[in-house]
Structure formats: structure tokens, C-alpha cells
């Protein structure tokens, strides 16, 4: 069975808090929010709306597909389509916040940083995630965290959002034994 660990209200509250923290910490404008496909894209959009409404500061959105930067291509199933990376602003000297739904091993973020750096030399890269579930395999930590969730390595975290067609937002923790 699935345990709801965050409902829609909790997710909204967490994202609003992160938006405030980004406004407080931001070093320069505009703020560039880059969502990592696929889970981070919708979260980045929501965050940018909150930041605009609270901070009255310019926010630009981008989307990053990190398929080509993964270190596990030989293990991939099928042949994942490489979706477009849409970053319409110059990355050089910019203040970038990468946005993802779940932080786990850190490999996705490593790939995302490589991908961003290949586009230019940002001044700062920060990381915002909705869930940090631990079990890092690389020296990576998030600057903004919606919720820390202790898990075992076999567990799954599932983030469902309205934008991808579900009736409501929620984060589930699925224990291995529950499957």
C-alpha cells in the first residue's frame, strides 16, 4: 500500500516556503529556474509564479533533459527519446536554481550540472527539491528542501502532480514490502 507523506496542502506550503527562501538568498536578478525533466519541470513553473508574486522580481524558466548526460546509458531500457532542452537565456554569469522532485543518489543532479555547464559558465548553481530521501552516492546537497523523508534504499517515492493529469497533488512513499 502507498502512504501519503505529503498532500496537496503540504506540497503547496513547502513550495511557497522554498520560494521565499530563494528570494531571500538570491544573489542577482533575474533568477533562472531550470526544471529537470520530467518531475522538476512543473515544480519549477509553480515556484516561478510564487517568486514573481512575492518578490516582484524577474524569473525565467528553462527545461533540462539530462538523458544525454546520464552515466548509465548502457543500462537504459528501450531507447529513451531525448526531449528538448529549452533554455532560452544565456547561462553564462547567471544565477541558476535547478529544480527536481526527488533527490536520491545525486546522479541526476550531477548530470544536470554537467549539462548546464556545457551551455555556459553560470555564476551560481543551486538546487531545490521537493523531497530529499537520502542515500547519496555523490557529494551533492540541496539548497532548498521541501521535506526530508527517511527511506530505505528499496523504497520508492512517487510524486504526482495535477499538471501531469492526476486529480490532485500528492507524494507517496511505497515500501518494498507493499508492492
Amino acid at each position, binding site marked *: 500500500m502507498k502512504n501519503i507523506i505529503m498532500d496537496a496542502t503540504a506540497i503547496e506550503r513547502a513550495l511557497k516556503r522554498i520560494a521565499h527562501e530563494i528570494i531571500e538568498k538570491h544573489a542577482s536578478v533575474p533568477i533562472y529556474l531550470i526544471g529537470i525533466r520530467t518531475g522538476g519541470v512543473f515544480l519549477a513553473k509553480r515556484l516561478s509564479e510564487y517568486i514573481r508574486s512575492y518578490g516582484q522580481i524577474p524569473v525565467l524558466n528553462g527545461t533540462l*533533459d539530462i*538523458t*544525454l*548526460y*546520464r*552515466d*548509465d*546509458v*548502457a*543500462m*537504459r*531500457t*528501450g*531507447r*529513451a*527519446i*531525448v*526531449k*528538448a*532542452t529549452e533554455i532560452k537565456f544565456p547561462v553564462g554569469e547567471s544565477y541558476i536554481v535547478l529544480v527536481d522532485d*526527488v533527490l*536520491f543518489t545525486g546522479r541526476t543532479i550531477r548530470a544536470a550540472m*554537467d*549539462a548546464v555547464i*556545457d*551551455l*555556459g559558465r553560470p555564476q551560481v548553481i543551486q538546487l531545490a527539491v521537493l523531497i530529499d530521501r537520502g542515500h547519496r552516492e555523490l557529494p551533492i546537497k540541496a539548497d532548498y528542501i521541501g521535506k526530508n523523508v527517511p527511506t530505505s534504499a528499496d523504497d*520508492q*517515492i*512517487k510524486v504526482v502532480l495535477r499538471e501531469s493529469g492526476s486529480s490532485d497533488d500528492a507524494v507517496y512513499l511505497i515500501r518494498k514490502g507493499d508492492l
Partner: protein
Amino acid sequence: MVPGKGIIGLKYLSRKEIEQIIETAFSMRDVSRRSVKKVPTLRGKTVVNLFFEASTRTKTSFEIAAKRLSADVVNFSYTSSSISKGETTIDTAKNIEAMHPAVFIIRHSSSGVMELLSRHLKTPIISAGDGTNEHPTQGMLDIMTIMDEKKRIDDLKIVIAGDIYHSRVARSDIYGMTKLGARVYFFSPPTLITDDFATLGASITYDAKDAFTDADVIIMLRIQLERQATGLFPSTREYSRIFGLNAQRLKLARPDVIVMHPGPVNRGLELSSSVADDADHSRILKQVENGVSIRMSAIYHTIGEEHGYTDN
């Protein structure tokens, strides 16, 4: 796709597979257009260009594609090979396979050689053209160029003109384009086509007006000059006058027609210089750019296919 065997012909690919390769190719093109034109995807993999038939352009396009994916590329061409020593094609390929390449890019003058080698090799093969059979990456880059310009391909009037009989480009084009719903017309001297080509799903015409009127896309094929010597057409002058594309004929087509050519162009023969250089309509250099993207995508899809993997 032929399981584990790469991409050896559009006749074997489904509509969905072709669309997936093209969608990925657009993302690959973004990589080519930025300042760091390289992604680490295929680090540590070896791509072998095995060319039994000379072709600098296609080989270069594949080489650039592989390098942009961070693969190591080894070029092997027939002039430096042991073919002159009487080794069979199968033995040559198996010898190189023993060195663990991740994928073979093969060009060969014999139709069907990809099917033959697929039976003998475990390494996947991407065809860079076999005889008069298929040239699948050219077919897909042509489709990509059309999709890029027209945002669709179904129901477009696409004219393929020239030496259809001996063209692997024409075959890959029609296999791919008909799967995607295009209306394809073959325009050719009757000596360079047979009626049976209609069974591939094309309408055949010998009349320039018929062919070019209301065309959305015109693909001019390269005429091999040696065909004249075998009596397939009397002179380049007459070929150009009756079967070539010039500015005047281009007016028959739709105002937004695009003109493509697999290259190299025989200027003044199948294509007049004014059309080849007409920036409003000519998409020949766009095809070259898209060629690298399609080949990046083809290599990517061919190599990254083993084992299971799940996110999160």
C-alpha cells in the same frame, strides 16, 4: 527496430520508431548549435565507420555525429583494407568486431549486405547505404527537414525526381514517407524507373508539369553521369531540359515549396544554380545539418538499448 541489429532500412522501421528517432534528432540538433557541441553520452564506446565504398560526406557526417556523443570513432575504408587481399566482407567485419566496437556504420555497394552481415555479427549495424537498396539515415534526415519546415508530412505532395531505379535514397524516402502518410510522386525518364515502382506507394509521372504542380516538397536526386554512357539518357543537355528543375518550373509548385537534394549537386544538370542557391526554397544545407542530428540520434538509439533501468 530489428532487435539488436540497429538500423538497416526504413522498410523495417515502424512509423513510431521513425518518429522517435526524428524527435530525438531535434534535441541532438540543439547540441550541435550551442558552443560546447558535445555531450558525454557515449563516452568509452567505439563507433566503427566501415566503408566499403568511398563517401567522404556521409562518413564525415557519421564521424561528427559520433564524436558529438563522445564516442571514439575509427574509420576503416576499403582502400586501406584487406579487401584487396581477397578477404570476404563477412571476415573483414568479424575481424573488426573482435575488437569490441559498440556499433558498425557500414556503407557497401551491394544491396542486401546489411541483412547478410546482421546474420553474422552481434554488434548492431547502422546502414550508411547499401547498393541500390536503402540509405535509411538519408531518408530520415529528409523527413526531419520536411517536418522542420512544414510541421507535418502527412498529405503533403512530395516529388522525388531523377534516377529512381538506381537510388537508395528514393527507396528509403518512400518507405519512410508513405509510413508517415505523405503523397509521393516519382518523376523520372522512363529508362530510370519501372512501372513496378508504383507498388512502393508512389504515383509515377514522366511529365514535369504533372510532377511539380502544387508540390510542397521537391527532392532532386543526383544523376550519375556514367548512366549516360549506358544509354539511359542521351545527353546532360536534354536531361536538364526535360527532367531538371529550374526557376521557371519551380513556379509551378506551391509558393512555400522547399527543394532538397542528397548531394553532391550537379549544378546545371538536375538542378539549376538559381534554384540550388534560392534561400527561400532551397534546404540543401539544412539537410546537411539535420544529417548530423539524425545520425547522432540513430547512433544513440542503436547503442543505448541493453539491460533494464528504472528511474527513482
